[in-house]
């Protein structure tokens, strides 16, 4: 069976800096992969490379295949048919990832019209339905609100609604809970978990936080210095970390006091 997403020997250079060094990852339909690493380890660059959204002047080699078709080297126009439709993304900062001057309903309606061919009125109605799906309170009213009128958690729910509007096969979540406070984090994680389960969407979850990834990912890959250091089933990697980077991340997670994680995964 062909994998949904297959990244093979992906290498990215920006200027003369090697940002990603021969990264290979594989995701099957409905699969959930956690990509973990400290800041600057190259995990966000990997996700942007998948969408073809790297900054001008980035030199990309290797292969990124979606359902067997190569994405690298495709034109921006061809890729925009993939973005939001087959692969969608949730961003770290819901505050900045929403246009401050556009009502949130319009922002959800954009991909609905584009990818599902809905009329203006149809998209507006579907946007409300999506707002209900992502658990926005009083959706009829909130779709007419501007982003600054929402709380951080509500904004991230809108971010999720936008990402899911095109009914993607793969959802990339780039630190979606990092900018939120801890109680809201848990809610958003539970919602994300629920949404991808119900829709059968594959998930590439990017984070630096082992406690978070342990809750959502079946498999994890640990990244450092632009390379994959270790990859395997979540339980296996966390129980028997082979790489020093994984051990360091695990120690950091324990030190910051996640009792649940410590109890569950301490050998």
């Amino acid at each position, binding site marked *: 069976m062909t994998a949904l997403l297959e990244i093979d020997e992906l290498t990215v250079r920006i200027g003369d800096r090697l940002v990603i060094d021969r990264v290979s990852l594989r995701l099957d339909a409905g699969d959930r992969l956690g990509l973990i690493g400290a800041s600057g380890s190259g995990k966000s660059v990997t996700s942007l490379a998948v*969408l073809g*959204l790297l900054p001008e002047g980035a030199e990309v080699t290797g292969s990124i295949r979606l359902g067997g078709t190569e994405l690298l080297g495709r034109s921006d126009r061809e890729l*925009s048919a993939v973005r*939001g439709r087959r692969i969608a993304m949730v*961003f770290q900062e819901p505050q900045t*990832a929403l246009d*401050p*001057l556009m009502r949130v309903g319009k922002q959800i309606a*954009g991909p609905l019209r584009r990818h599902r061919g809905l009329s203006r009125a149809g998209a507006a109605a579907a946007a409300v339905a999506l707002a209900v799906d992502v658990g926005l309170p009083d959706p009829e009213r909130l779709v007419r609100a501007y982003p600054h009128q929402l709380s951080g958690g509500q904004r991230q729910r809108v971010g999720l609604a936008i990402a899911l509007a095109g009914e993607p096969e793969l959802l990339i979540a780039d630190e979606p809970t990092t900018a939120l406070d801890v109680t809201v984090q848990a809610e958003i994680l539970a919602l994300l978990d629920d949404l991808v389960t119900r829709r059968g969407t594959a998930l590439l979850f990017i984070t630096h936080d082992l406690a978070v990834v342990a809750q959502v990912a079946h498999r994890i890959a640990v990244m450092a210095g632009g390379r994959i250091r270790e990859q395997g089933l979540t339980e296996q990697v966390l129980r028997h970390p082979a790489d020093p980077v994984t051990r360091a991340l695990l120690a950091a997670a324990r030190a910051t006091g996640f009792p649940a994680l410590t109890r569950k995964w301490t050998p």
Partner: protein
Amino acid sequence: MTGIWRSLGGRIGVLLVGLLLLAALVSLFWSPFDPTFIDPRVPWAAPLTDGHLLGTDGSGRDLFSQILVGSRITAFVAATATVMAGVVGVGLATLAAVPTRLGGPVGQFIDVLVAFPTILTAMVLAAVYGGSVWTAVVAIGIGAGVNVARVARAEMSSVLGTDYVLAGRAAGASTARIVRRHVLPNVAPVLFVQLSLVLALAVLAEAALSYLGYGTPPPTPSWGRMLQELQQFVTVHPLAVIWPGLAITATVLGFSLLGDALREATDPRLRIARTAHGGEAALPRPEVLP
């Protein structure tokens, strides 16, 4: 509109610009005298004599009628030159800011034209096509347009670098849609300020060009040419030259105040601050800061 009326400056701006538009409108149907009618019996009449509200010039032409009819040219040039500056500015800025192969050259083109004086453009155009209202409009439109483009390009680049544009692209939006739906609305407040400055500048530039003889040709009355004609006699009849100067100053002031008020009214970030704290904009007051 209510936002503009909220500030004192906005009110004065609306009144002054309203006065200009009213004068231009009224002059289409009525003026106390024919502004070009030469009456040798009353040269240099003092204000309020023989029905001459502001007096007459050296040929006995009624100054008030000239100011009234001259406002048409001012209003027309200000409006058309600003529209043109907006089109030129937004067009060039979009081409320069959106990352394509065209971006670099267009950016350099803007930088070169910014250094090119508007007066020089007008002189070149006037030399080729003769002085006319359109010479002034095109020269001001291009001259101000590249300046608008320079500012708008920087603003657009910063908007294009934001997360919400990245998020828009990640959701599959085309470049055209991103520019139309995200970039333009977000640079609009800055564009409004720039274009309101252009309105004020266009009034000044039209006066300057007419003064130099590159704008409105005689006998059509224009404030710039009135200034030039009356200025020669400023030591003998100082009162006469005040009127066109006053008209130009008041109009420029009106457009500037209106532009400022417009900026405050259209920027939703300022709008929120105002409604959240009951009436007043919640900006840090300079005197409160250490």
